[in-house]
């Protein structure tokens, strides 16, 4: 007769099972605590999302357009009403990325100035922003200086100048101006601008300033709130703090669903994580949102999708070809265009990067020419990095080394730059220097692995 005694190991199992369950639960809890969803709470918009204009932002801007169109209809030669209408067209352009709104903004601002050529800084500021969108920084500075001559201390003109200096790599002047702005008006937009300047200079106070910016937000200024979060997220993404970055992008998307800037950054992050389907979805969301209108994001989306295909080992050149066609249309008159009608947002750098993605002798040669022209217009870290890449491909390794060192000298804490510098140093047979650069890259972002490098095209 068999006695059914419990196997010896069963006894411990009674103890093991709950222990295992506990461990699993704790693990799940710990993971959930670090998940973007949970972390998003830290960056969530502090005001109700169902306030008017939040969920139906485009509708709200449309209502504003109707308001100003009525006023213009009532007084067709009113320069101030036209200026207000131009500003609203600009706002719609910023909200959607659709090129047609920028064009309307430009035309209407010009009409405004022709009707009221004096005391009309509003129209001039719209034109300055159009010039900035075209990357025509010379024209931007000319207009803003004109405004500042007429109106010393105009905060809006100063803010545009800061942005211009930031884009052209004139960081000392950008810092001086933005410090003044924040001192006089510590608001979400000025603090965000200051954080961007600090980020470009690699200053340790960047996070603190972004936090201060978000703490300064106000109900109803959702565009600024979403923008600050995306920029803060990008700052974290560069450090490899991907969960925090994603939390911030998601928080921005909670405020402004379909926000193109947030979706573009989110897609980049997903590519880095190897989550290509999610990246694709983010890009598709922008396309769906744009109602098939041409947008300033189109070439970014196409290039991003091409990168996904490339990383998956699939044919990617058709997508790059599409993006190239778009960028060529926009770049023909680029940085010297005086009007959007000349067809340009001045994406010379973007075209060069795309040509480098194609990595053919002919495209590499053209990319180098483009970047040599571009660097005369701006010398920010990203431009210098693109120049270095073009020089590297052209076997001008010493020149690439100098360019990347200039980029690093801006102070920006970007592991991609340092890894690119390491690559150039290795080619120059400077193994120790290469190691130092690589160490700096992993110091900034310990998770800057091969996938991260491939995601930005470094190791492809």
């Amino acid at each position, binding site marked *: 007769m068999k006695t059914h005694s419990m196997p010896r190991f069963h006894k411990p199992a009674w103890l093991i099972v709950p222990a295992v369950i506990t461990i699993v639960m704790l693990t799940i809890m710990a993971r959930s605590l670090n998940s973007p969803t949970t972390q998003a709470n830290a960056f969530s918009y502090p005001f*109700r999302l169902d*306030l008017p204009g939040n969920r139906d932002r485009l509708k709200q*801007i449309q*209502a504003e357009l109707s*308001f100003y169109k009525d006023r213009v209809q009532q*007084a067709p030669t009113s320069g*101030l009403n036209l*200026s*207000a*209408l131009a*500003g*609203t067209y*600009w*706002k719609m352009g*910023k*909200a959607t*990325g659709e090129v047609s709104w920028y064009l309307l903004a430009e035309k209407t601002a010009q009409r405004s100035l022709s009707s*009221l*050529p*004096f*005391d009309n*800084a*509003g129209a001039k*500021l719209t034109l300055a922003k159009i010039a900035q969108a075209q990357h025509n920084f010379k024209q931007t500075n000319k207009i803003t200086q004109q*405004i500042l001559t*007429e*109106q*010393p*201390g*105009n*905060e*809006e003109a*100063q*803010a545009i100048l*800061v*942005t211009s200096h*930031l884009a052209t790599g004139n960081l000392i002047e950008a810092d001086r101006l933005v410090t003044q702005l924040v001192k*006089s008006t*510590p*608001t979400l*937009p*000025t603090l*965000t601008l200051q954080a*961007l300047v600090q980020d*470009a200079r690699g200053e340790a106070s960047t996070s603190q300033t972004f936090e*201060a910016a978000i703490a300064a937000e*106000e109900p109803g200024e959702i*565009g*600024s709130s979403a*923008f600050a979060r*995306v*920029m803060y997220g990008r700052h974290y993404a560069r450090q490899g703090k991907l969960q925090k970055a994603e939390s911030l992008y998601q928080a921005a998307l909670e405020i*402004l669903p379909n*926000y193109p*800037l947030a979706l573009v950054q989110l897609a980049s992050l997903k590519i880095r994580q190897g989550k290509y389907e999610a990246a694709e979805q983010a890009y598709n969301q922008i396309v769906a949102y744009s109602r098939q209108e041409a947008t*300033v*994001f189109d070439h970014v989306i196409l290039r991003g999708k091409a990168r996904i295909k490339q990383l998956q080992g699939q044919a990617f050149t058709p997508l790059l070809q599409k993006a190239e066609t778009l960028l060529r249309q926009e770049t023909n008159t680029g940085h010297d265009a005086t009007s959007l009608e000349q067809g340009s*947002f001045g*994406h010379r750098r973007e075209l060069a990067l795309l040509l480098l993605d194609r990595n053919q002798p002919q495209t590499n040669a053209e990319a180098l020419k483009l970047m040599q022209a571009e660097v005369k217009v701006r010398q920010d870290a*990203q431009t210098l990095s693109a120049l270095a890449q073009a020089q590297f491909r052209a076997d001008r390794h010493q020149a690439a080394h100098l360019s990347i060192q200039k980029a690093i000298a801006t102070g920006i804490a970007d592991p991609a730059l340092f890894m690119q510098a390491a690559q150039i140093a290795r080619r120059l047979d400077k193994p120790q220097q290469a190691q130092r650069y690589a160490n700096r890259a992993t110091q900034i972002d310990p998770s800057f692995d091969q996938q991260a490098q491939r995601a930005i095209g470094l190791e492809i």
Partner: protein
Amino acid sequence: MLTKLTRRMAQTLNFRRLPIKSLLVLTLLFAGTGTVLTATNFVNASDHDDGEVDTKGRNLNLTDLYVFREKDQNPQASADDLVFVMNTNPRSVARQQYFFSTRARYQFHVTRVNNKDAMATGRSHMIIRMKFGKPDKNQSQPVTVTVLGNGKPRSFRAQTTPLNQPAQSYQGRVGQHHIAMFAGLREDPFFFDVEQFFRVRAGARKTGPAVGFRDPSKALDFAKGYNVNTVALRVPIKLLQAGTDAKVFDVWQTISLPGRGGRYRQVERLGRPGINEGLIVQNNLLNTLNKVSPSFEAAALAGKQPQAKLAAPVIADASRTLKALGNNDQRTQALLQAFLPDVMRIDTTGKSGYGAALNALGSPIRGRLLKDDVIDTTLSVLTNGAVPSDNVSYEGTPGNTAQGHQPLERRFPYLAKPN
């Protein structure tokens, strides 16, 4: 703040209206409209963003101050109360909800004055502070109203009135007195053909063709159709007197923001219409004035140091403006003494109205009613009668659809319903 004035008009959504504090504006040799949308962006992926950037939020902009005896607006009202009105958030578009800042302190400052002819001291004997909370699901913000300067600070709670809701005013008890308070969107009562003013000024400066103001049938009231965020208070004169027998008060309003470390810094100040913005042309000097109290101007005008030295460029700027309007040295000096320090003086012994009475210094001393044509008054004073009117009025000209505001309400807070 001419600049503000001009800005008041020239901007769009995000553009803020600069309080038109100014008639002096007229004078301006340079001025400008400011706007508000600045893109603070620099984006890896594409360089384009949706930065809806207004360096100074619209709700941090003061547009106008009104102070009047309530019975002069409403004969049925008590003779014992004054009404204070603070308008902010210029150029609020019709049918859209706007909010007060949840960070800022909105404040009325009051000085008790013994002699209506005395120069303003700019000392705050009393402050009435409004602090707004987050909007709720009904789009209403909680408001805490605090009275400071009468012994222990006393507060009461209220709510803002959302757009499309009947005006809701709240009563708060301060010691033995009651204050009524309304906050929310109202139609902007201001009126001015500012665009034609720019043309007139350009003609005077020889930078444009010489023109005059438009005929009343064609003049365009730029503020028509816009809303503002209003704070209106009904304040017992006895509360302001605080046990004294003062009958005259200087009033001004400020907005302050917390900086790093939480310390509040003043970012806006406004008293009489058009003074700062009219007299002070340069934005940087305007910003200087925005950060200090009227006591700074009082000390500077009295030759006290370091205020006099610090204020010298501001005073010089104002003097240049006045002289450009055709005023000689003596009259320029007199006008400076009349309009600075920038406070709204109200002598409660007489009927309210901006042009109702002047004191020995030439300063208006009867506050300001909602329909007062402050532009005409200021134009006339600053140009010594050469330019009497811009031909725009509150009610407008029959047949001219570009003018005319909605009728004022018959009860507190009196401003017309929002568009």
